[in-house]
């Protein structure tokens, strides 16, 4: 079954709530809980959007993002970055590494849903003939 959204987040409570609301919004959701597993999962599942937490064990979200953008087959994947610090520094790095959007924790679920929808629709629009 094709995956709409892949969530990469290590905090179980956040993951649980996020999965729940995105599924409720009508999308198929899969998840991974550490940075190393993300690349593998992205290649295997080919999600339409990646929701990526920056601070994860084993490999930071920034490193993952860099790797994704370096891979030709994955370069176009829309990525929403979840940052915990919200400092200018984090925003800048996220932009430089090619994040499409980012949201600062703590967030409103509605913001996440709306942003994911934006990314999905943009993607669909681009890829439709």
């Amino acid at each position, binding site marked *: 079954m094709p995956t709409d959204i892949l969530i990469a987040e290590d*905090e179980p*409570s*956040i993951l*649980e*709530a*996020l999965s*729940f*609301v995105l599924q*409720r919004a009508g999308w198929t959701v899969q998840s991974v809980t550490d940075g190393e597993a993300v690349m593998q999962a992205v290649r295997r599942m080919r999600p339409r959007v990646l929701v990526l937490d920056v*601070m994860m064990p084993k490999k930071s979200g920034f490193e993952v993002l860099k790797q994704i953008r370096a891979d030709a087959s994955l370069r176009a994947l829309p990525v929403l970055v979840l940052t*915990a*610090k919200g400092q200018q520094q984090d925003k800048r790095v996220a932009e430089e590494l090619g994040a499409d959007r980012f949201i600062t*924790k*703590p*967030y*409103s*679920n*509605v913001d996440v849903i709306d942003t994911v929808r934006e990314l999905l629709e943009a993607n669909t629009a681009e890829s439709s003939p």
Partner: protein
Amino acid sequence: MRAPIGLRISTRRKALSISQAALARAVGVSPSYLNLIEGNKRQVGGTLLQRIAAELGIERDELTGEAEHRLMHELIEAFADPVLADRGMRPEDARHLVATSPGIAAVIAQLYRAYTTAMSSSDAYADRLRADPLLSQLLHQVLSGITAIRSGAEILDSVPDLSSEEQTRFLASISREALGLTAVARNLIGQFDQTSSRSRFASARQEVDDMIFAAQNHFPELEGAAATQRRRIDADGPFDEATMVHLLSRHHAVTIQRSAEPRGGKAFGYEPSSRTLWFRNTVPQSTRQFQMARLIAELNCADVLDDVPGMRRLASPMARQGARRYLATYIAGAILFPYESFLADAVALRYDVDALSERYNASFEQIAHRLVTLRRSGEAGLPFGFLRADPAGRLSKHFPLPGLLLPTSGHACPLWAIYSAFRTSGQIVRQVARFSDGSRFLFVAKAVSRASSGFTDVALPHSVLLITDILHADETVYGDGLNLSDSRLDVPVGPTCRLCTRTDCASRQEEPWSPGGESIPPTLVEV
């Protein structure tokens, strides 16, 4: 820098509507000379100052005003601070304010002190936040916890027709996260408490310094208590280490222990639970004697310590603890070096600290410290100032000399003998230091280090500085051989680079403060 005696004289004279000529006549000097005195261009002291004070109907102390002098110094520091620098207030303004409106000057000084405490506190927090990975991690945990709770609560609140299983699941998640957050919050608060205690330490130290200064570092009550203790010790046997050991054992069941065991970097200590006073073998007899006397003071004189005037004014427990520690040390010094006989010996030996060390079996620093406290009115020794520095140049333990204010923290002028003493460790270094207002002092310094307990035990020296006015130098052995009247041999110094007005000093380490970008006003006396 000298106290603004001249301005105080003129202020008082004008308040009494006495003309300069009339006052000059009354005290037996020419009006032009009195004019120079009032303009702080000539120093005045001795009997002339006495006559002037008498004519003006005030005490001599009110004219020399040591407390006001310290206040003036605090104001000068405040004016030099970047927060006030653009106001363009100069040292003369500080002098004027202290002489004419001491109440307002005191308020400004107090506000500045509160400001610097608050600034260093917030600096400490900022440093901590920036540099501490643990704090960063804790903050991350706080954010994650809040994110989970907010997300879960939003679900419970706004998602329609949640199944009861789903409700339970998210409620449980919120509970769990809230518990986790509690632990993190406690940890965070603990971290912040540690940070703020650093600045509390600085102001506690300042409080204790104020108390010591107000008492001119002489405590008659403690001298009395020390004399009592000394009599008891003398009644028990010859005054030596063995007698004190015996007394401590008999009256307080204290045992003395000497060992070669490393005990957490300390050379000696007292364990109240086992009533053991222990010393490393490398500790000299002078230290053992002193620490025994101090323990005797702490055990026998606790109530006297609390009755010292100024103790009650100390605001924080940390300050009170620091004060008690210092006062117990004071009593120890008074026990080991009883006032009358020590003063007599000091005068007879012309304040030769090493000679006194030998006679009393004491360390250089112990003797120097005791000399500073010989300020009983009517029976005082030479007035001395005292300063101690570590090899990094950091100052500690400062006792100001009436008439000269010492830097209270940080570093002093690099030319001072206290620092050159490190280069000839173990030998006395002396210099005649001349400040830019013409005042001259005899500086005597020595760097001493404890015994090392092994090759890897780096026994760093520290340096002790004694200061006396050049007027008294010939009463000390350290004035011998120096041509005290030839000022060409003086070392031109300042208090510390930032506040020093010497623009041509080759040893300057820091830019001088200059108000509003103007150049430093010229010195009052031609150097």
